[in-house]
């Protein structure tokens, strides 16, 4: 329930159901939560519009390009209105131009919808845009962790690790 209702996940390798439509993929967390088909489709279209993929709703998920796939995955993460989105190398599989689009999308969500982002990345530029960062070397916290904005502010934060 925690994973389904509170968290959204964005994976580097996308992980989708290959022969299902884009809409069905996006609505998967809702289906698992037991939401009815009509409401599922409505919410699915809503989040697809948010990531500008509404026109691809009926396409097969595998037919999308890399950037579109990542946006679809973000839409899936958004479907259940999560409070936190965990993104594992969200730009790792994308070229820099598409990567920028996806990153902008994530930070817009943080700014406008108040969703906390936890991003795992090797990309220094992406890490620099986050409020706090923890450097991890071989599984343990290393020196060089910074907090750009004091945690006391308690606004939805972006953290990179």
């Amino acid at each position, binding site marked *: *329930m*925690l*994973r*389904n*209702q509170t968290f959204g*996940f964005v*994976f580097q390798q996308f*992980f*989708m*159901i290959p*022969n299902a439509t884009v809409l069905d993929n996006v609505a*998967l*967390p809702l*289906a*698992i*939560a*037991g939401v009815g088909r009509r409401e599922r489709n409505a919410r699915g279209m809503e989040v697809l519009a948010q990531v500008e993929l509404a026109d691809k709703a009926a396409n097969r998920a595998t037919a999308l390009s890399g950037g579109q796939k990542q946006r679809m995955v973000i839409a899936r993460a958004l479907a259940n209105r999560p409070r936190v989105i965990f993104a594992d190398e969200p730009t790792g599989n994308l070229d820099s131009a598409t990567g920028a689009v996806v990153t902008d999308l994530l930070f817009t969500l943080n700014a406008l919808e108040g969703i906390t982002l936890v991003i795992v990345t090797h990309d220094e530029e992406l890490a620099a845009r986050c409020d706090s960062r923890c450097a991890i070397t071989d599984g343990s916290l290393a020196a060089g962790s910074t907090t750009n904005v004091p945690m006391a502010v308690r606004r939805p934060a972006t953290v990179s690790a």
Partner: protein
Amino acid sequence: MNLGEIIRTATANTFRSRLRTTLTVLAIFVGAFTLSLTNGVGTGITAYIDTQVSRMGAGDVMIINKVAPGTVDMFGGSSEGPTVHDPDRVSALSSDGMRIQVLTDADLANLLTIDGITQVEPFVSVMTDFISRGSGAKYDFTVNPGGAGLNLDIVAGRPLREDDGPVLLLPVSFLAALDFANPEAAVGASVAIGVTDVLGNVHVTAADIVGVQEATLFGAGAIISESLKSALHDQQSTGMPEGYRDVYTTASAHFEATPGTSGEDAVKTALRAAGYNGTTLQDQLGVVTTVINAVVGVLNAFGIIALIAAGFGIINTLLMSVQERTREIGLMKSLGMSRRRLFALFSSEAIFIGFLGSALGVVAAVVVGGIVSAYVANGPLAGLAGLRIIAFDPIAILAVIGLVMALAFIAGTLPAARAARLDPIDALRYE
């Protein structure tokens, strides 16, 4: 995910790998087809026997014969050693040389004194030689010892009545030989029946045909009226020494008890105490039914073996499916799908495959069974009117489908449990 959603998803998933699903369904199809067909044979034959039994009329009739004291062995002795000879006990040799005990008029009177026995009629056996019509050829002819009690398929005319004079029912097989164009033409016609007495003289008696009968499972030969039978018996007994004339191997008796209850057993016990053995038609058929059930049981076992083999096919198919969809399962788990629901999802896939195979198998069995029954009824077994060799009982059909689905569920538990147990992190990492 609610149950409806799980079933919908599972159904859709089974069609994702069409060839694999088709092959598994085919294996189940073969098992379900065999099982339905063998079941159908059992149902068909049992139904036929039941109809024949109900034609035999009253269930409250026993066939009674006399038993020798002690258990008679092959040499006429018993387990207590040789039996002391009793000159008053009349016995006869049966055709295979065994000594059998016969009933005399004194026995018949004695039987009536037994509690529960209301009416006793000896089986008068008549050995007829021939039947002929006018100056036409003579044909070998046998009489059914069962007599008027049988309710037969009457093709034309009417069944026998108790007050009938010397009349008979002609079996359909004699129509052409006796030069009758159709069954209706035979009704009312007169035929001659010949018997030979012990001295070798041939007696010919005229009899009228009142009806035409279909062949039956019980007893070959024609059914003749009691008055004709006693007339023929008297002619046949001409020249026999006194004391050998009125002996009977068996008699039929009506009893006052509900058939199949302890009342019936009480009558049998009383008979046994008096030295007689009573068997109802149900007892005699019990042997036949047991044999048929055993044969059908063995055939069913083959069907079940095929289904068990198909069950391994289901396990294999689903294990491959779980393997292939490991990352998808990991995704679903990471999105909050519970173990129970994942188990239900894969189990539903197994049950759906079972349903597909069994439904197709049962439908095919009904179609093939119908064709085979029609062919057999018009061909090799045309003589047994009303026989449907393969009949289908809706409850048995549903039971087959239910059994296969249950089997499929059991086969699906292993792969489903494997899917449910997967760790989401490992599953997502799986290449």
